[in-house]
């Protein structure tokens, strides 16, 4: 019953929102309540098996998924409240996309069979498009286009992996996938899935949709995209490609390296940005690099459940904190002392400042890495590098602070949802750790480990002030810009683009275009010939003779 309610409320919201009048209003009013309904199955611990639905949906909250459920309920609910008061324009489609995304996310959280998860993931991926393109501006169309292309590239990998899993085990219970018996012959599926879900998390070089989509989406939409929806990718990894206890994932070192690369690349690219929300988007990329580091550590030491819990804690901390930082963007954080405080605290927390929730999450991440790399003989610098990511994040948060202080529009009210989400970000992860027995005591050594990267960051900022910042600027979405240019040469895919995008085509581009065009024309020409029966007959005869020759020779 509790699960049915948690799934029906967002669906009802989605079905009502597109209508005008009273129905639409009710659909919208459901939006802040529906996420909270997810707490019901968490509280009751209900498990259901709907074998009539699709190919069999098993739903319920696994213990390790609980922090994700908590995150979704709090961040999504508060963001919905914020959105109710701020989002204007084509609200019918916005709320449809919003509620459908929540429905998909709820399925992703509750899924215990392959089909259930895949259903939720597809829904959340497609529905997010509707909230990304809400502004309907050139930039929004572009962000939506890049997002969809990447989402379907990821989808191709994911559906391949899912079908391979299904071919071996059918609509499998996801919990079984983590057991050693289910590891046989599935390396390819596992890699396809890891690669496919990496798109959602924004692992470099698949990150380009985040810095385009987050700045252009409405503020609360960015908050859930960055805070919650990207975690669907992590859930995909953990549910569909879990590290098995039988053997260490052969590619774990590669994943670890990729995670660190993503963590630092995100910060470096983010530092060159001049829009607040873009900087925050790059910060998410960087943080998801840390998530990948944690996933790799779990793969290296899959026997220990504490590292799985550590990933949950990291997701809970990041989701609430990043959600709060994004909501700040809609409340002119520079316009009063209180607002500055509400911005500074989660920013410090993200940089893992002592006693903040980031400190807790980072400490657990470091323990996991330490256990994973077996004390550091294999990769001596890894542990230090993970510590340094805090310094890097601190630098990025300094950039956030500088940009935020320029937003002093006193006319913008301080929305209570922002304040509440900030409070949640500062407290809920601690409460969760207390209830699940994973507190970390702020001893002197623990504090020092968290403190020195911050001091390092302060030193860098001071030095930077003395010497001046390097004037490098990367465009939003960095490598997507040259890619788009080369795609334009070959006639980009026909996803809807804004009508006013000007095209300047140099001679080389014109040649490439002509080539692509002539390919299409010759295909059409061949197709025209097939309309003549004699041609078809001759062709069949030819194929027949060829086959016969091959058989005769073979």
């Amino acid at each position, binding site marked *: 019953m509790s699960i049915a309610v948690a799934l029906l409320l967002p669906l009802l919201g989605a079905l009502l929102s*597109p209508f005008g009048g009273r129905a639409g209003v009710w659909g919208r009013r459901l939006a802040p309540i529906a996420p909270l309904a997810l707490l019901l199955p968490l509280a009751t611990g209900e498990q259901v098996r*709907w*074998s*009539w*639905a*699709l*190919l*069999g949906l098993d739903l319920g909250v696994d213990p390790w998924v609980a922090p994700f459920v908590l995150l979704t309920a709090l961040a999504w609910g508060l963001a919905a409240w914020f959105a109710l008061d701020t989002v204007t324009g084509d609200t019918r*489609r916005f709320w449809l996309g919003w509620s459908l995304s929540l429905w998909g996310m709820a399925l992703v959280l509750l899924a215990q069979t392959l*089909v259930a998860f*895949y*259903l939720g993931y*597809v*829904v959340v991926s*497609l529905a997010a498009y*509707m909230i990304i*393109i809400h502004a*309907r501006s050139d930039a929004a169309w572009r962000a939506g286009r890049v997002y*969809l292309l990447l989402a*379907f590239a990821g*989808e*191709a990998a994911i*559906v*391949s992996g899912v*079908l*391979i899993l*299904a*071919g*071996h085990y*059918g609509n499998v219970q996801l919990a079984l996938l983590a057991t050693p018996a289910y590891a046989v012959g599935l390396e390819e599926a596992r890699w396809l899935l890891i690669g496919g879900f990496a798109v959602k998390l924004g692992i470099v070089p698949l990150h380009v949709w985040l810095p385009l989509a987050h700045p252009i989406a409405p503020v609360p939409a960015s908050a859930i995209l960055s805070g919650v929806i990207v975690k669907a990718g992590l859930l995909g990894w953990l549910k569909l490609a879990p590290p098995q206890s039988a053997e260490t994932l052969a590619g774990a070192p590669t994943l670890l390296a990729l995670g660190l690369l993503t963590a630092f690349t995100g910060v470096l690219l983010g530092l060159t940005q001049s829009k607040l929300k873009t900087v925050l988007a790059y910060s998410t990329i960087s943080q998801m690099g840390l998530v990948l580091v944690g996933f790799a550590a779990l793969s290296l030491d899959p026997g220990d459940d504490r590292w799985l819990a550590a990933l949950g804690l990291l997701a809970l901390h990041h989701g609430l904190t990043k959600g709060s930082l994004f909501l700040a963007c809609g409340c002119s954080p520079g316009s009063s002392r209180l607002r500055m405080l509400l911005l500074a605290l989660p920013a410090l927390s993200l940089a893992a400042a002592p006693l903040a929730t980031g400190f807790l999450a980072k400490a657990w991440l470091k323990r996991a890495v330490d256990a994973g790399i077996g004390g550091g003989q294999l990769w001596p610098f890894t542990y230090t590098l993970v510590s340094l990511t805090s310094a890097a994040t601190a630098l990025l948060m300094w950039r956030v602070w500088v940009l935020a202080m320029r937003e002093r529009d006193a006319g913008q009210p301080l929305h209570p949802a922002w304040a509440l989400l900030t409070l949640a970000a500062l407290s809920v992860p601690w409460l969760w750790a207390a209830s699940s027995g994973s507190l970390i005591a702020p001893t002197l050594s623990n504090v020092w480990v968290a403190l020195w990267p911050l001091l390092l960051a302060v030193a860098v900022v001071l030095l930077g002030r003395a010497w001046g910042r390097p004037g490098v600027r990367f465009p939003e979405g960095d490598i997507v810009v040259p890619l788009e240019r080369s795609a334009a040469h070959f006639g980009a*895919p*026909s*996803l*809807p683009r804004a009508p006013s995008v000007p095209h300047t085509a140099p001679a080389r581009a014109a040649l490439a275009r002509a080539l692509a065009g002539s390919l*299409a024309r010759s*295909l*059409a020409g061949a*197709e025209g010939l*097939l*309309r003549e*029966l004699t041609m*078809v*007959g001759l*062709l*069949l005869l030819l194929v*027949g003779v060829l086959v016969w020759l091959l058989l005769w020779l073979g």
Partner: protein
Amino acid sequence: MTGTMTDAMTAAAVETTLHPLPVVVVLVSLLAGLAIAVLGEQRQRLRTVLNLSAAVVKLALVLWIALLVAGGVVPEFRFALVPGFDLVLRADSLSVLFASLSAALWLVTTVYAIAYLQHYANRARFFGYFSICVTATMGIAMAGNLLTFFVFYELLTLATWPLVVHTGSRAALRAGRTYLQFTLGGSALFLIGLIWLYALAGPQDFIAGGSLQLLDLEAVTSMQAIFVLIAIGMGVKAALVPLHAWLPSAMVAPAPVSALLHAVAVVKAGAFGLVRLVEDVYGSALSGALGLSLALAIAASFTIVYGSVLALLQTDLKKRLAYSTVSQVSYIALGIAIGGPLATVGGMVHLVHQGVMKITMFFCAGIFATLLGVTRIVELDGLARRLPWSAAAFSVAALGMIGLPPMAGFVSKWYLGSGAVAMGQTWVVAVLVASTLLNAGYFLPLIARMWFRPAPERWTGGAQPSRWVVAGLVAPALATAGLTIAFGVLAGSTYSPLDWAIAIVREYLP
């Protein structure tokens, strides 16, 4: 997945009983068709009543047959054309799958066609042939041997031609000529194959698991050649590349005809014929041993990708849908060709799933053209503001075509892909993924245009028909879109098409 129906079917021994139902279900439409032709053009109200009641009666009869079959009875009717050559009409579970699809979609198409053709000339002729078409389709569904199948297959070819050329325009006549050239050419090869087969093995009924055995090695080449000949005959209607070219040009026909051609009648008859050929004549084991399955799988895969690429190049809505059909119908042949329980289920269930999805899209294309004068893809911008319900139906069907859950198309793709992996043919997954991406590439932009682009100042044309006509057009589209969702969401429940297909495959691969 074990529903009560499945249990009943395996528990009770299947017994063949002499029963008039298979003939009655064929005759109902034939009589209705003749009556409509005799009534003439003016008796509009009577014609409508006759049309609808015949469709309803037929649906009821098919459901009756379905209940019989689910209870383990196989109703059969046979009489000798000439001594030794029987005309056999028999309803096995595979017949019921195809017959219930035809009967259900025929009913909605009749409603749609009555509304759509309000201002067309020669409606008596149209509905007369329309009913004869359904007669032929029923005959194909119930055919109990290859000879009977051939008879009704030819009747279908001939009865469809007047529908394709109904408007009598130059383009329509040209399309009709192309259609006849291809289908009659295919039939000729089919007939040669049929005679050769009877000479080799004698007349035999369709039997689950195949009636042919490889008697001696000498016969291998003949048996391969016979298969190829008959498969070409079927492949023309199933639009296997390079035999598909008649289908896109037949787009000039009125929308209800296109809907029918693509979802139930002609294209599906070809695909159904391939299923019968592989499963009931050769048997999937023999087809595999002769290397024929692999050949068919390759041809189907090529068709899937080729059709999708060409669909991407089209700018006309109906043309794009036509090439999409070329691609999607080959899923059926692919599933049968891969073999194994899962993929066979996937192929068979796609008979139904592709039908409901594609008929929805053609209904909507017809609505867009009639009400707003929209025929090209660029004109779809902002269409959802004017026709939200039709646009929603279209979108649901398109998402299903891409194979996204929870629509019906996902269920097909799941069974095809996992079945291929289970048979060790992982390359098929690549074909399915390529098809998914291409489908997304040519359908998502349409959805995005309809829902998110601004509408034009005014629509180019189209009539302003009465409320009843609009309802008659939109309701069928909504009904089939609803089926698209229901067949996906309720796939796991008893009496879903999936459940039925699983029951069929239990018979074939115990």
